[in-house]
């Protein structure tokens, strides 16, 4: 009974470079949070303007209501993001080392 010899390991001649490049540094979280707050404030201002226009008789009721609704959505979204942020912070602070 013959046992075949173990062949030499053939090293790959070329190693193809990894195609995945390190991701470009995304905008910092604080930066995007600031942007979110700016957007929320802008939609609130737009709602304010629409309501004022309506009261002056230059705007439509539905336009004002839609602007208010938009502002509400933006605010609700911001609040959700803030809740998640606080929750993440608390989770990390509770972590036992």
């Amino acid at each position, binding site marked *: 009974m013959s046992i075949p010899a173990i062949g030499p390991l053939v090293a790959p001649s070329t190693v193809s470079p990894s195609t995945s490049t390190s991701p470009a540094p995304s905008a910092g979280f604080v930066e995007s949070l600031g942007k979110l707050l700016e957007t929320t404030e802008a939609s609130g201002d737009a709602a304010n303007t629409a309501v004022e226009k309506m009261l002056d008789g230059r705007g*439509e009721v*539905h*336009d004002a209501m*839609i602007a208010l*609704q*938009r502002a509400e*959505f933006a605010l*609700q*979204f911001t609040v*959700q*993001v803030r*809740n*998640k942020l606080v929750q993440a912070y608390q989770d990390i602070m509770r972590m036992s080392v």
Partner: protein
Amino acid sequence: MSTLNAALNASASALNAERTRIEVAVSNLANAESTRGADGKPYRRRDVVLAADHSFEKALGEAGAIGVKVAAIVEDNEPFQRRHDPSHPDADAEGFVAMPNVNTPEEMVNMLSASRAYQANLTAIGLIRELVQKALELGK
């Protein structure tokens, strides 16, 4: 949320367009008996021409919702109705008065159709609002 935003914009533009239709129908009804307009002639019935507004689409790239805009408010060139009323100050030599070319039942139907369309767009906005609220609940 950009798609829903585009849908909201489209519905808002439709609300404005339908409001214009209602306004014009109301003005036609109000002036159904006006024998003197700005040019001294009887009131001419007016009609709203609506057009698809592609400016949203361009602004938002591939958004699916296309708004609507009032392209023009045109005057109806149907001949005036003639009513025999010799005592009327605007009666001609034969005793006929030229009355506006407004057909009241027709205006009522136009007004009803515009008001239904307005309500339909309000429902659409309510639906979008519900969807966004449900989506926000994902974070809770």
